[in-house]
């Protein structure tokens, strides 16, 4: 596959997995949690590197899950002890992220892992880091990891669709009929963590938030059905990823930045034009009346 094709495939995989996870993040009112996890996974990634001294995607995945769950647990813990939810999120992730930054600056400091890379990602490097699969041939490691993560995300959503739906809509009812609400929450947080780590290489900690939240927020404006919202959000994620790449080529600028910008454009179009919540539709409704 050509260089451009690998980048487009990688970016689309980021858009798709983030778009799917984002739907539940939005419906669980946890958009800020995505921001938190996307930053605090850094400490997991750096720790994994320091322990193994290898820059391997699999080690980082484990480190990222642990850091993501640690974030979720700490936020919950502070919250249960009287700290407000948003303050609790703000305190936990900035502190964990800061430790991650200090660790990179003092302990790691090499060309493969630096703060700028962690924040912004560098999708242009992805096609260079190939691994050989006997049955397939050469494939970028980041792309392979994203494919596996997407498969895990899709299987998890199909398997726990009704559990996540009911715990998002009415956690009290869910608990009263015996669905393990806390377990489903932490399972979900683990998946957000692996999605974030997988997307990290390509788009970095800041842009992954755009990929997680914005396509889902746009999809919410178009439909009244959860299943359709998932399909739309995934599609918007892919459109933004591919569109963003060509914007970047056209303007000769940052690819991850352009992809995040593209999610913003998709959202603005939805905000203006969606038949249900769109500004234009509402305007015409009032004019008719």
């Amino acid at each position, binding site marked *: 596959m050509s260089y451009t094709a690998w980048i487009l495939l990688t970016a689309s995989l980021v858009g798709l997995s983030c778009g799917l996870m984002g739907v539940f993040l939005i*419906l669980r*009112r946890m958009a800020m949690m995505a921001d938190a996890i996307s930053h605090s996974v850094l400490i997991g990634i750096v720790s994994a590197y320091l322990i193994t001294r290898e820059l391997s995607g699999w080690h980082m995945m484990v480190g990222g899950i642990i850091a993501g769950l640690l974030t979720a647990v700490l936020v919950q813990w502070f919250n249960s002890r*009287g700290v407000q939810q948003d303050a609790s999120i703000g305190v936990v992730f900035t502190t964990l992220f800061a430790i991650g930054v200090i660790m990179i600056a003092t302990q790691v400091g090499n060309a493969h892992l630096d703060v700028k890379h962690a924040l912004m990602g560098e999708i242009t490097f992805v096609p260079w880091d190939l691994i050989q699969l006997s049955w397939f041939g050469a494939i970028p490691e980041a792309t392979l990891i994203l494919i596996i993560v997407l498969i895990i995300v899709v299987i998890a959503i199909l*398997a726990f*669709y*009704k*559990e996540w*739906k*009911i715990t*998002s*809509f*009415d956690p*009290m*009812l*869910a*608990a*009263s*009929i*015996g*669905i393990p609400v806390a377990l489903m929450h932490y399972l979900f947080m683990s998946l957000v963590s692996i999605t974030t780590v997988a997307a990290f290489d390509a788009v970095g900690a800041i842009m992954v938030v755009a990929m997680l939240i914005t396509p889902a927020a746009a999809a*919410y404006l178009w*439909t*009244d*059905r*959860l299943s*359709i*919202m998932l399909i739309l959000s995934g599609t918007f994620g892919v459109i933004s990823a591919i569109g963003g790449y060509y914007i970047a080529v056209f303007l000769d600028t940052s690819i991850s930045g352009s992809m995040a910008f593209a999610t913003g454009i998709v959202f603005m179009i939805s905000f203006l034009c969606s038949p249900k919540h769109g500004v234009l539709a509402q305007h015409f409704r009032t004019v008719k009346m």
Partner: protein
Amino acid sequence: MAVLTVNDLTASYRKNKVLNDVSFNVQPGSLTSIVGPNGAGKSTLLKVMLELHPKLSGDVSFFGSTLNKMKTRVGYVPQRGSVDWDFPTDALDVVLMGLYGRVGWLKWPKREHREKAMDSLEKMGMADYAGRQISQLSGGQQQRVFLARALVQEADLYFMDEPLAGVDAATEQAIMTILNELRMKGKTVMVVHHDLQTVEDYFDHVLLLNRTVVAHGVTKDVFTKDNVYQTYGGTLRYMMEATT
């Protein structure tokens, strides 16, 4: 045998004690209203009994056993305001959620579940609204959907948190008809209720609660002026004397 036995139940909310030594038991086939002023711990009592809120001490037994073993026999209707009505789902789907526990892990609801949910909506006079997005329903219709979701669980003991709050008169009648039908079938229902005017008409038992049980028993014996005053304190005495 009592359907529900509560012994010395104590619970707190952010370090404030909201329930103190609450004890009572409920007989099968009764329709009980839980009445008390704001902050008396009515909703908390339901949540603590259902283990949705931690207790400090005391114990609760359902049908002479634990909640865990009896979960399928207990149904709960949370306050209407506790969920996000903008959630992308329709009325039928919300009712279907009542069956999620029975559908089982890794399975999707089948046609039989859908039919059951539809029957339940029909019973609440909501069949025509099955496909309606839930934010497009009126407050009374939303409450009927919640009731339909409880009915579909086919429980033997129901806890309902303010099902009559903010609903229209037709919905109030529809809900009371259903509650009476449940009682006729030998089911037990406990309802958090706010309207003192209708307690005597609607409920055969009453539990007067203000952090602890002030009085509990058959409505005509227990729902006396003295007991109500004692539950609500001075403010109500003033209000009631002003209106009579």
